[in-house]
């Protein structure tokens, strides 16, 4: 399991996250929700050690090895236009490669299988700059999968996707989670979608853990309005809560 203990992040003397203590069980899907600036991305970044933080983040009581233990899909990934999709996904193998050792058969196979899992087999040579938003998002996810890390940290993986592709991508992740025993942490703004896939939701607000529990427990009008404001309505559905926007001032 992953354990954040007393984790705090400050930028220029201003605390933006924490102190937070939070654990994620092996094989669990944890949804991170919260308004803009709540600290969702920052929390994920502490686990890959790309922000300075105090406290500890560990996996099975060992310090996390960035890249090997956790694969991180950033919110706004940098996609060099001219780079080919297969080359890009191959960069996910970086944590496994020595400085001078060339890519092995296994590395090439892993890349190919990551491309296949995300329906990108025919895209291997396409430059990243020619992909649509959804294709690019799948390429980034393929790179994360190619890392073969037991934990996936996905920051807004469906932000640029239409509702159909969003469900499709998350379904792929869920299938892999079950097949390969992955632990998944997803930060999301789409609360309904977050609730559909997560075993457990954590609501961050102003850097602090504000609510935690099953989707039904967290996605209530009372809790959401306290943190997102009054423009939120929750409709109960057999498959879980549906969160919809509501106009506050009717012209």
């Amino acid at each position, binding site marked *: 399991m992953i354990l954040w203990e007393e984790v705090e992040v400050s930028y220029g003397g201003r605390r933006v996250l924490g102190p937070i203590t939070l654990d994620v069980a092996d094989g669990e899907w944890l949804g991170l929700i919260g308004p803009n600036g709540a600290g969702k991305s920052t929390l994920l*970044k502490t686990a*890959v*050690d*790309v922000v300075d933080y105090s406290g500890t983040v560990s996996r099975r009581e060992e310090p996390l*090895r*960035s*890249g*090997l233990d956790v694969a*991180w899909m*950033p919110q706004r*990934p*940098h996609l*060099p*236009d*001219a*780079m*080919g999709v*297969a*080359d890009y*996904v*191959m*960069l*996910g193998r*970086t*944590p496994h*490669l020595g*400085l*001078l050792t060339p*890519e092995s058969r296994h590395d*090439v*196979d892993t*890349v*190919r299988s990551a*491309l*296949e899992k995300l329906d990108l*087999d*025919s*895209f*291997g*040579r396409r*430059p990243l*700059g020619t992909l649509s938003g959804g294709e690019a998002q799948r390429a980034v996810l393929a790179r994360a999968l190619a*890392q073969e890390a037991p934990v996936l940290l996905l920051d807004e993986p469906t932000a640029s996707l239409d509702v159909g592709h969003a469900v499709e991508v998350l379904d792929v992740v869920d299938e892999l989670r079950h097949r390969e025993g992955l632990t998944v942490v997803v930060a999301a703004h789409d609360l309904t979608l977050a609730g559909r896939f997560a075993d457990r939701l954590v609501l961050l607000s102003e850097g602090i853990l504000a609510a935690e529990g099953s989707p039904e427990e967290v996605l209530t009008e009372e809790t959401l309005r306290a943190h997102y404001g009054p423009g939120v309505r929750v409709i109960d559905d057999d498959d879980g809560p549906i969160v919809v926007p509501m106009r506050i001032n009717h012209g």
Partner: protein
Amino acid sequence: MNKAFSATTARPARLRGGAIALGVGALLVVSLVGLLVGAAGIPIRGVFRALANAIPFVDIDHGLSDVELRVLFEIRLPRVVLGALVGAVLSVAGAAYQGVFRNPLADPYLLGVAAGAGLGATLALLLTETDGLVAPFAFAGGVAAVLVTYVLGRSVGGRSTITLILAGVAVAAFATAIQTYLLQSNVETIREVYSWILGRLVTVGWSEVITLLPYLVVAAAILFGSRRLLDVLSLGDEEAEGLGVNVGRVRWVIVVSATLATAAAVSVSGLIAFVGIVVPHTIRLFLGWSYRIIIPMSMLLGASFLMAADVAARTLVAPAELPIGVVTAFLGAPFFLLILRTMRGPT
């Protein structure tokens, strides 16, 4: 068909045999031209025969006089080799800087190495009035300038490279100001200093080559070993860190090795402009984005480019010589613009 097709598409970008053959071929042809062309007018047949004769266990009558042999092996050959080494260093260092700073305009002079070396050379010429100490002073000046840049840049900014580049600009301006002041007050040395600044490959023999060689070998080995990491760095610092790369350390190692090699190169050749920009970008335009290709090809083609520029410098206004820095910029700039025009498209 599917299996075979996807097997090829999952393979990483790599240097192809054709590109290597082209690079090695260009290197051989240009160095041969460099050996054949010169003020001494040695017969071409004789040069070929003397070169063959130099191969162990081959004994051919070359018919060259002792003086001609000395010119060939003690003047032309070291000059050709020096040109190849300097060209390879400047190009590969340029490619590495562009990768590390993710800036297409980055070159080995970015962090103040050129200005520092210029100031060092000026001091050597002013203080000693001979040019024996120019190379060591230029080397020390270049390294000192980059050190100051690094310390200043680190003291201001955290994980960003922008402050480092800006510190380089400030240090370069400062060193250039001191140099200009010194020259203003010692007008008689201006000519010598400018002749050094414009670059030249005139050697006194093999000593410069031997001085430069270890720097080049170490830097080339380090940069060659870093070529895949340079590709990872193109994703940005955060994502590279997320893939387990220690970005700060990688950047430091690459910058130090590229800078030391550049300082060593310019200390013997002067400030040869434009090579570190034009060669890597030409390779990018034709062979793609990957540093697995750009790093080795920069060494091969940079060596050829500078040797060719030196041939032009020796012959265009013979019996006089043009400064090689003038040739690289004067021929290199239009050539580069031409390539940009023909290859224009998404990069």
